[in-house]
Each structure stands twice: as C-alpha cells, then as structure tokens.
C-alpha cells in the first residue's frame, strides 16, 4: 500500500476508533432512559454509524459499509420512536458496534469478516417492529421512477420510514451549472441547507451527460434528488433554492396517498423492465394521480400505521434539528490567516535561534549566556502562546449567524411577531467555546421566542408593542466574554417556579422560605424542571435549562438570570476567552498534584486543628462544614483517590497511616486504651506517648485545608492536603483510558514536568454523590446560630496580668500605647506613683489602688498601658505576658464588679477581669474632673438634654450610660432598636439625640436610623452610631442609612466630644 493510502487509512481508523470510544456508554444511557432517551445521545451514536458507513464506502470496505448501514437504519428507527431501545435492542446494537470495532482494527481484512449474524439480528430487530406486510422492506430495495423514466433505487425501509414520519417526499432536478454556479450560489452551502431541512433519499448525477474529458464541455449538469422533508410544498422552492415549479411532490402526507408510487425492483432485468412499463413515462404533474396505483406494502403501511408515530416527537423536528446539529458540528480543521502563519513561522525561527544560543551557553558553561538564553526563550514562548491562541479564536458571529433563520421559523410556527437584535458578532473566543455554545444558545433563543415572548394580542393588551424583541449581545468584560440573551416577554414567575419545584419534590417548603427571588428563579436549572410540557405548563420557561447549565459548566462558564414578571428576562453567560489556558488553583492530595479552575473556587480555608470538631459535623450522614452559618458538604479528596488518610511524621518526614475515621470524628487521647490496639497501632501509641507534648492532634500540621468550590448550583468543600499557588495552566485533553472519569476535566503539565489532573467541579460533586444539606433542620439551626453570633458585637481587648493569677483585659480602644518598663523607672513623689515619660511626668495607677486585688510585685516584668482620661494621659501598671484578643464574649457585670473593675468574662476556662480605667482614675484622682462635676451640678435640676441609648449588651449599655450621665445628660435606655423606636415616639418632644449600637436583635441600629429618618419631625435629630465595627464599609453603610456620626465603642473622649458638639445648644459650655 502506498504511503498516501496508509495515511488516509490511518486517519480513517483513528477517527472511527475515537467515534466508537463513547458509543458504549451512550448506548447504555439510552437503554436506561428507555423511550425517554436523549436526542443528543442517539444522534451521536447515529452520526458515528453514518460516518463509518460513508468512509468505509469510500475505501471499498463493503461489509463494513453494509453493517454500518443496517445499524444506522435501526438507530434511525429508534430516533423516530419506532423502536424503543430496551435491553435486547441495545444488546444487538452493541454487538454490531463490537463487530465494527473489530473490522476497523483490521480494515484490510474486514471484507473477509462474517457479519451474517449481526445482519440477521439487525434485520430481525427492524422487521419485528414493522407490520407483517412490511417485514421484507428491510432487505429490499425500491425503485422510484423519475419523471424522465429513470428508476432511482433506494432501500425500501428508507422510503417507508420517510412515509411513516409523515414527511413530504419531493423530486427535484437541479442544473448545477445554471441553478447554482451561475446564480452565484455555493454548491456546498446549498447542499448543507438541504441536509439541514430533511433527508436526501437518493441523488443522481447524470454521468453520461457529462461525458469524458475529451468531450465538449457541457452547458448543463443535471442532478436529480429524491428528498424527504417536513417543509410544505409552498415553501419547498425556497428550501431547495429552486423555482417551486421545478420541484414535484412525490408523497404528500396530508393526502395519505402517493402520487408516484414506489415499485419494488424485480430480481431479473426482465421483471425490471416490466415494472418500468407499469409507470407513466412522462413527468407527472402534482395534482395528477395514477389511474391504477399499484398497491404496495409501503403504501398500506403509510395509511395503516401513521397514527402509531408518537405525536410528541414529530419527525420534522427530528429531521431538522439533526440536520442543524450536523451542520454545526465542529470541524476538525481551522482557517488561519496568512499573517498569523507568518508570525508563527518567525517565532518558530526565533525559538530555534534561542535554543541554539542556550545550547552554546550550556556547553561553554556561560552563566550570563544561559540566563539571557532562558530569558529569550521565555519571551518567545509567551509570544508564541499568544499567537497560537489567536489561531484558535473565532468570532461568535459563527453561532449568532444561525439565529435569524431560527427566529424567523419560530415566528411563523408560533404565530408571533419577534424582532431579533444581534450585537457583538465580532467578539472572538476560542473555537471550542464557539462550537460548544451552539446548543445552549439555540436552546435559550428558542425558549425566549417560544415561552418568553407573548402572542401579539396579549402583548397589546398589556400595553406592549405587538412585536416582541429578543436580543443577543456579546462583549468583553474583565478578561471574560459575556453573552446576554434578553427578551421583553412575560418574564419568569419565581413563585410559580417554586410551587412547581415543590410539587415535583425537588425542594422542600422549608428551603424555599429562606430563598430570595433570584434563588427561586435559579431553580429553573434543576434537572427535574427540564421537560417542555412540565415547565411550559407552569411558567413557560426552563425547557432543558439543566442541559444548558451542564453544557456551560463543561465550557467553564457561568449563567445568571434577571427576570421581572411582565417585563422580560435576561440570561447572562460569562465564559473564559479560552479553554486552552485557564487560571487555576493547585493543590495536592497524597503525593499527587491537582488543579482546580479558579472560576470554580469561591474561597480557601484553613481550619485550625483545635476548631475541627467545632466546625465540622455530620448532618444526614454527610460531613459538613459550618461556614458562617451555612452548612457546606465536604469531599475528602484522598477518599476520591482511594488513598488512606495519613499524616506526615515531623521527625522522620514519613507519611504514616492515620487512625482517624472521618474528618470530625477525631479519636480522643485515650481511645487507644479503650480499644484493643493492633501491634502496629501499639508501636504508634508508644511513639505518640513519647512525644505527647507535641501530639499531632494538637499540632498545626493537623489543620484542615479546604477549598470551597461552586458548581453554580451548589457549593461544597474539598479537603486537600496542601494548597499551592494560582497558576495559568495549559489544558490537555485526557487520554481515552481516562475519559470515563467524570471528576476530571483534563490534565496539565507542571513546571517540573509532572502531570496534574484538572478537577471538574460538577463531575466531582456527582462522583461523590454529594447531598445538599441546606434543607435539614440542622442547617436552619446553624443559620440561626450564625445570625445570633453576628448580632453580638466583636470586641478587641488587650490582655495582661495584674497579679500572677489575675488576668485582666482593657478594651483596646482605650489603649494609646503599651510601654515595657523596669522597676527603676517608677518614682514615688508626693505620695503618688509616676514615671518619666516623653519628657513629662506620667501618673501611674494600679488596679489594686481601687479594687481588692493583689498588689503588683515590682519584681515581675512590668508594663505600662497608657490611656487618656479627662484629657490627661495616665499609665496603668500591669505585668507580662500581654496578648490581644478579638472576641464576642458576654460580659458578666455582677460577679467581679467593684471599683475599677467593670465586669468579667470567661475565656477558655479562665476568668478575666475587665478594667474600667475611667472609674479607676476617678477613684484614685478624684480631683482630676472639676469641669465634669461642675457640668453635672449645673444640670442637676433636670434641665439637661436627654438622649436615647440603644444597646443590647448590658455591659456596654451601663458603661456608656454612666459616662453620659456623668456629663449631666439624661439617658433613656433601650435594649434593642425596636424598643428605642417606641421610646423615641413616646418621648419625641424631649429627646435631643439618639446614641445607638449597630448590631442588635429585633431591630438593628441601621434599621432604627432608617425608621427615624423616614419621619420628617426627626430629620435633624442627631443619631450617633456606636459600634466596634467601624470599617470604611460600615461607615458608608451607616451614612447611607442616615447616621450622623460613627463612634467606636468605649472611646470615651471622642464620645464626650461628639456629645458636646451635637448637644451644644442644650449642654452648657465647657467651663474647664
């Protein structure tokens, strides 16, 4: 065999093998689905058989062609719902594909293969589903006499199927030269459209008219076509691109009879001639019927069994969509502009030069040369990458281009008026993405026309224009391509969608209660809401939206919906520019590294070992992470890989098996004693006992690394061993042997040459059988707990010691500085303790000056906590160690309360006293606040201003109240926003300002402020926000709500200043 033939044959074998690789799984899914099989899957299988049939014919592999043809026929019968793909049917098909695979593996010996058994099975299968009188049709050919008297021979089964599918059968004669070439049409386009509209039962180029090379060039090139389609006679001329009168109706399903009936070919030539003679020899006009039509099996079948064709699957639809799908099927070739090719050639040249330079530098051990060579290679590679990416870029117009026709057809079919607007056709994206978008976009445009846009009269009734608009828009945004499909139709009703989801048991009532409108609309992506009848019946949206979602997932895209009832819907798809290079997060499990696309990563967490038991629990048998009140199911990636849980021994750096069962269920320290340990375990226990001080259960190496991943529909956590950097990875397809693994989307090669598999987040969720726990009782409890926690204020404290066992805290806002001092720096002057500090004398106090606590031993390591009281700096003498604490603890104001001690709280089993530095200073230095006393005295008559203080924490409320009252201001207390509002309404005439906490139950400070601002009479009432959360965002939010000023809790100086400013008319002037 010549090398060219080898090449062609190898191509054929490789392509066929690839096509066959997915057939088995597709057929098995089809078998499982029974009569409700996926059209897409059956079309995939059909296409494979069809392609093998065509290609094997070209090579002269006749047996392969025959077997593929019979297989294709059975698949076509399944496609048109004449055969239900049960186990027996699928078995025969699988065997046929097995045989085809054998033949493809040894193509040159394929004609010697025995396919009799397969042919008998396939024939039996097809004929079993045919009426008795049609059984012979499977193996018979039928001849149809053409108007010129010539007989076209086609398999009888093909003709019968076309008739059964209630399609029209037309005969047309093209003159390719005059009708196509000279009319400026493209032959390939005309034929592509023809295939898209139906099935070419047979075609015949008149070879004799063409003659030989030395004959005179003909001025005509006739092509006769027998064509089955659902397109009606009045439109057939347009579809076939021929004047209507040149197309003859051979079979009209509405009339139930054939004008030109097929005649079985007689076995001998004599019989053939007699058959020809039975037919009229002239072209039959459309309305003419033969006077004595021969009664054939197929004719009987067409009238007798037409009602058996399932109405839910009209053949025209199948024929057309199949054709479109075929037409849009991705080409294996790509057009590249010469400029880009030249650029690539230049870069290839650059690369060679750089390689030579590097090799030379390496051989000379020239470090500078090596460095410059590697830099050059780096530059060239980057540019090469960019240019190669350009070759893959295609305009999205390639997909958008088909929609005008689609919308036009739908407009007619649905009797609606729809305008289609297209914007951004020129936006380019990766070829794979453009091809992958074809099906989802078609689905969505069809939905928008079918279910979004209302009938003209309905639109006019609701005040809209009779013609609806569907818009397609593509644009670039933040390195992504955004595609929007908008309609001005009836919109999606979230409530009706929710009701349908409940009815179908897809979500619970409890789950729905917490859902926003947007979340309810997102229910449209649930698989159960995907069938046309079901969804059309409820809100008119959602046909196959789960399939759209799945397809977009595969493309690494995201979809969101905005919809308003009566106004319309907007579907926004965000896609990466390319699938070939994607930013990804790298992680490891076991000794293996993996990549997860950044688009799927929501956040990454590290759970300290001490918090694992608290944060991770088991709900409905699923290990879940409590993530700010949301329960997120977890997948342990090691388990996916089938690896045992292990840990890294810090001493030996060995990976040893862990005895941990599950994530949260960590064995206790004495578990090993309760259960009889194995010998191996004993060794480990002994080893652990020896290093009990650094037990790994309490070591940071036991921390959990979790990647929170989204599939778009749900979030889940992936527990991994190690997290690495984000990197742009080059995506490589998986080999055939790994293609069945749904949890991987591809592979990439890392910088060190190792391969890392890329995670498919949806596939991993499916593989792990993840259950959503969002509807469980525990989920609502966790949410409530989180809400409660959020309502508690976060407070920052400085922790220190007074006596060796007296741990104290002071709110961090009160601390100006912390200074480490020595005993020698302390001075006793005039009976008072001071120290030299920044050129002045700093008064020092200790807690024991006012409270009954231990006296500080000056032999301890000393610290001075500097605060400001009454505009004076004062130092609190404390001892080491110090620490900072951010907590939400509740402060007990009674147990430890005494002068200088505001209260106490418990932290990890230790009692911590909260120092009230103001009270302490006032007790020790009573003479420091004459101005305050004067102010208070002048207001003693009750003429002072009044403020409402809203604060849910008893500690803070009483603390602030005391401070305010010491300024001579009357305070009305409220323990939440709602009570504050009620009190304000009651005392509206005498309240001069409101001082409110932000996070409170019942009604938050922001809600209270908004309520106040709603009333004109309180428009100028100062509202001071008092919070420990004073980030920029909080301040912005507060200002937007109407808060006059934000103050940090316990910053008494600022609070006093603010009160002065806002109550200046009421508060007497500062007399200090």
């Amino acid at each position: 065999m010549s090398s060219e033939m080898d090449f062609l044959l190898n191509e054929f074998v490789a392509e066929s093998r690839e096509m066959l690789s997915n057939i088995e799984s597709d057929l098995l899914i089809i078998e499982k689905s029974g009569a409700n099989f996926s059209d897409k899957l059956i079309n995939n299988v059909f296409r494979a058989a069809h392609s093998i049939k065509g290609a094997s014919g070209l090579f002269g592999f006749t047996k392969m062609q025959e077997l593929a043809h019979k297989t294709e026929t059975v698949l076509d019968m399944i496609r048109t719902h004449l055969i239900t793909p049960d186990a027996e049917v699928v078995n025969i098909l699988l065997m046929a594909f097995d045989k085809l695979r054998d033949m493809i593996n040894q193509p040159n010996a394929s004609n010697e293969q025995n396919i009799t058994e397969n042919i008998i099975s396939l024939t039996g299968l097809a004929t079993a589903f045919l009426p008795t009188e049609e059984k012979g049709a499977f193996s018979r050919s039928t001849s149809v006499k053409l108007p010129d008297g010539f007989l076209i021979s086609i398999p009888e089964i093909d003709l019968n199927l076309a008739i059964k599918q209630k399609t029209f059968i037309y005969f047309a004669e093209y003159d390719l030269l005059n009708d196509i070439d000279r009319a400026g049409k493209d032959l390939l386009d005309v034929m592509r459209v023809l295939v898209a509209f139906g099935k070419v039962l047979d075609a015949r180029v008149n070879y004799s008219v063409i003659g030989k090379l030395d004959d005179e060039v003909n001025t005509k090139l006739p092509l006769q076509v027998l064509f089955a389609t659902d397109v009606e006679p009045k439109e057939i001329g347009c579809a076939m691109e021929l004047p209507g009168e040149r197309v003859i109706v051979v079979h009209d399903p509405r009339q139930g009879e054939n004008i030109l009936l097929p005649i079985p070919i007689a076995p001998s030539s004599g019989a053939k001639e007699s058959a020809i003679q039975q037919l009229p020899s002239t072209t039959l006009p459309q309305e003419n019927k033969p006077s004595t039509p021969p009664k054939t099996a197929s004719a009987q079948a067409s009238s007798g069994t037409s009602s058996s064709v399932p109405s839910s699957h009209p053949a025209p639809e199948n024929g057309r969509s199949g054709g479109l799908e075929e037409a849009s099927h991705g080409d294996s070739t790509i057009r590249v502009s010469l400029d880009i090719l030249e650029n690539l050639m230049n870069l290839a040249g650059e690369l060679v030069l750089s390689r030579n330079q590097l090799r030379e530098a390496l051989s000379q051990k020239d470090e500078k040369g090596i460095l410059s060579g590697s830099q050059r290679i780096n530059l060239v590679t980057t540019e090469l990458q960019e240019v190669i990416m350009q070759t893959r870029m295609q305009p999205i117009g390639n997909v958008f281009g088909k929609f005008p026709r689609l919308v036009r057809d739908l407009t007619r079919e649905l009797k609606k008026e729809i305008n289609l607007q297209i914007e951004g056709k020129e936006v380019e994206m990766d070829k794979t993405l453009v091809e992958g978008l074809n099906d989802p976009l078609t689905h969505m445009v069809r939905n928008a026309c079918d279910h979004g846009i209302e009938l003209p009269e309905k639109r006019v009734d609701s005040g809209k224009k009779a013609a609806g608009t569907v818009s397609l828009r593509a644009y670039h945004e933040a390195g992504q391509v955004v595609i929007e499909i908008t309609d001005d139709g009836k919109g999606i009703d979230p409530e009706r969608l929710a009701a349908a989801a409940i009815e179908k048991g897809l979500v619970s009532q409890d789950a729905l209660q917490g859902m926003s409108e947007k979340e309810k609309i997102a229910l449209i992506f649930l698989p159960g809401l995907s069938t046309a009848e079901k969804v059309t019946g409820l809100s008119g949206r959602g046909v196959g939206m789960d399939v759209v979602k799945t397809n977009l997932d595969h493309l690494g895209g995201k979809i969101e919906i905005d919809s308003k009832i009566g106004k319309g819907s907007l579907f926004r798809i965000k896609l990466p520019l390319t699938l070939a290079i994607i930013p990804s997060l790298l992680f490891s499990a076991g000794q293996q590294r993996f990549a997860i696309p950044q688009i799927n990563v929501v956040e990454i967490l590290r759970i300290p070992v001490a918090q694992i038991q608290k944060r991770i629990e088991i709900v409905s048998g699923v290990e879940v992470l409590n993530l700010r009140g949301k329960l997120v199911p977890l997948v342990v990636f090691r388990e996916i890989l089938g690896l045992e849980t292990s840990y890294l021994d810090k001493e030996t750096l060995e990976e040893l098996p862990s005895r941990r069962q599950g994530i949260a269920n960590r064995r206790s320290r004495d578990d090993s004693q309760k259960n009889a340990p194995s010998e191996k375990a004993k060794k480990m226990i002994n080893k652990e006992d020896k290093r009990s001080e650094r037990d790994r259960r309490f070591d940071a190496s036991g921390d959990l690394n979790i990647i929170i991943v989204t599939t778009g529909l749900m979030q889940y956590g992936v527990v991994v061993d190690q997290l690495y950097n984000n990197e742009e990875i080059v995506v490589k397809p998986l080999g055939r042997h790994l293609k069945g693994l749904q949890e991987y989307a591809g592979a990439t090669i890392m910088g060190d040459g190792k391969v890392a598999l890329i995670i498919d987040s949806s596939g991993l969720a499916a593989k792990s059988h993840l259950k959503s726990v969002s509807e469980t009782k525990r989920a609502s409890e966790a949410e409530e707990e989180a809400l409660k926690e959020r309502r508690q204020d976060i407070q920052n404290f400085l922790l220190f010691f007074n006596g060796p066992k007296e741990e104290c805290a002071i709110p961090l806002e009160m601390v100006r500085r912390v200074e480490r001092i020595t005993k020698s720096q302390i001075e006793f002057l005039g009976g008072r303790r001071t120290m030299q500090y920044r050129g002045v004398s700093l008064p020092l106090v200790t807690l024991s000056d006012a409270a009954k606590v231990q006296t500080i031993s000056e032999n301890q390591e000393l610290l001075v906590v500097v605060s400001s009281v009454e505009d004076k700096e004062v130092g609190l003498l404390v001892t080491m160690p110090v620490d900072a604490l951010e907590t939400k603890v509740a402060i007990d104001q009674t147990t430890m309360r005494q002068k200088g001690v505001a209260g106490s709280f418990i932290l990890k089993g230790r009692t911590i006293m909260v120092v009230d530095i103001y009270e302490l200073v006032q007790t020790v230095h009573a003479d420091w606040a004459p101005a305050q006393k004067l102010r208070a005295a002048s207001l003693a008559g009750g003429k002072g201003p009044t403020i409402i203080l809203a604060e849910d924490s008893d500690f803070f409320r009483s603390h602030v109240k005391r401070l305010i009252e010491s300024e001579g201001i009357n305070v009305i207390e409220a323990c939440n926003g709602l009570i504050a509002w009620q009190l304000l309404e009651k005392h509206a005439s005498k309240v001069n300002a409101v001082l409110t906490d932000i996070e409170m139950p019942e009604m938050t400070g922001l809600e209270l402020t908004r309520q106040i601002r709603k009333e004109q009479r309180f428009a100028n009432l100062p509202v001071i926000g008092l919070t420990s959360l004073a980030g920029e965002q909080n301040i912005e939010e507060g200002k937007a709500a109407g808060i006059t000023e934000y103050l940090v809790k316990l910053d008494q100086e600022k609070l006093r200043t603010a009160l002065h400013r806002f109550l200046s008319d009421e508060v007497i002037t500062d007399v200090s």
Partner: protein
Amino acid sequence: MSCAQVNREKEKATVILQTDLVAVSTAELRPIFLNLIKDGVTSLWLDMTAAKKIDSQGISILVASCNSLDAVHGELVLFGVSAPIVSLFQTLQLSRKFKINPA
C-alpha cells in the same frame, strides 16, 4: 502560478491541487488530466488537501476523469478531501463513483 503540481511514476500520476476545485482551475486541469490519460496514466491520484471549495465544474471534471479512466480500466483516487466536500459527495451519492481502493 499553476493550479496543480504533477508527480508522475510510470502509470500512476499524483496531481496535487494548489487551489479550490472550481471553474477557473478546472479549465486548466482538464488538459492536464487528459494528457496524462492519453500518455498512459491509468491510476490518477488527486490530492485535494488545498481544495476547500468545489463547484459544479469541479464535480464535472471529476466525473469526466472517471469516465475517461473507466474507458482504459483505470481508477481515480481522491485524497486529502475536506469533511464538507466528503459530505457533499455522500449526499450526491458520488462516493459510488470515486472509490479509494487500497492497493
């Protein structure tokens, strides 16, 4: 520039198309094919890798070449045919005419 390059090996000739198989190129190809067959070529191989388009004249010359080769018991072998053109040949049932037979 010629629309084709011809490599001759005894009774076999490989014609490498440099362009689409359309009216313009067929006018040039017809005498080339004819002369090859007249010169004793019975196995005519046509490399269609460069041909992304074909029109009725292109089909006409293929059929005419086939008819001429039939008369000398020869064969026409097409290779490097793009998927859309293969699909066209299948639709038009031309695959019955242009067979690629393994040696």
